[in-house]
Structures are given as structure tokens and as C-alpha cells.
């Protein structure tokens, strides 16, 4: 969300998993927070800011 505020290239959504079970199943949500980048499931759990950016800005997500 901070990333979306800082860049017009980024959009960010929080999604309540139990209200959208079909999507949650498709994104293999078994633990939260579950991070999905450009529609591809990535990892579970919170990470430091720098690690978060390393992951979401990695080549291949664009």
C-alpha cells in the first residue's frame, strides 16, 4: 500500500480470504498474510521493507 502511494506503477489490494474463497483457493491461500504479485502466489508472512521490495520488484514480475 505504501508502494502504491509512492509509484503510479504499483497497485495494492488487501483481500479478505474467507469472503472470496474461489480466488483464495486459486491463489493457494493456506496461511496469511499471503502475498500475490501480478496474479502469481509468492510467499506467506511479513518481511522487512527492503526484502519486500527485493521480491516484488524482481525482474520477471513485470
Amino acid at each position: 500500500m505504501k508502494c502504491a502511494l509512492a509509484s503510479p506503477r504499483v497497485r495494492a489490494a488487501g483481500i479478505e480470504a474467507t469472503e472470496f474463497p474461489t480466488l483464495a483457493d486459486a491463489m493457494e491461500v493456506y496461511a496469511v498474510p499471503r502475498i500475490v504479485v501480478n496474479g502469481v502466489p509468492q510467499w506467506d508472512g511479513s518481511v522487512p521493507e527492503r526484502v519486500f521490495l527485493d521480491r516484488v520488484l524482481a525482474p520477471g514480475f513485470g
Partner: protein
Amino acid sequence: MPIFRPEDETRVRELLAAMERPVELVVAHGPEETPLPGARDVDFAAETERVVRELCELSPLLSLRVEQQPDGYERYPAVGVLPEGRDEGIRYYGLPYGYELGSLIGAALEAGRSSSSLSAESLARLEALDHDVAIDVFVTPT
């Protein structure tokens, strides 16, 4: 029953007092997915609107707009967080209950800042971004 207990209301007012610019919260209604069994006794759309309406009453810099299936919303109910009314692609999909109410308040606070709370290094990396990135964070209220 009100969303905020009196002691919570006081605390949230204090937090929101740090806002430096207006933030518009857009409640988007539309067709909803059938949730998991046992959740059907909650009117997600009505409760989402009630939560956001009560939150907006706690700061003069928060405002509410209610829309039916507006452009740029993928599922319902949804809450858009718009700093100074600008849509910067920030959404919460679902009813912001429990921990997620805290997340929504956090989003309003961040959007209400006049400068980012990210590090200078992070801001530089985001400024150099040359492709679109969509980040979805799946959460639960408990």
C-alpha cells in the same frame, strides 16, 4: 451496536489526528461471491458501509463516497483509499472487521501523510520502476 467502543473511538480519533491531508474512502457495492459456510448471516455490503461511515465520523479529513460497481474495482464489497480524492490503486476487498479494521485505519493514516513513510532508498527504487506491479495481500479478520 456501534463499531467502535468509546475507548476505541477516543484512540482512533487520536491516531487520525496525525493526518495531514484529506483521504476519501470509497465503498463500492456490487455482486458478491458466496462466502464460506457459516458466514452468510452477515450482510457484508451493509456492514462494510457502516464500518467506513463510522470511521469517517472520527476525522474531519476522512470522507465517504458510496458507489455501485465503479470502474477499477474487481470484487465486492470493496473500499478504495484515495489520498486527496486521487485513485492510486489502493483497495481493500471484503468486510474490514477485526484486525482488518486496524489495517484500514493504517491505510487511511498512510494515505493521509504528506510524505511517504518508506525509506529514501525504497522510494528511489519505486521511482525507477519500469513495469506495472499488482500486489495482493490475502488476509483474514482473526
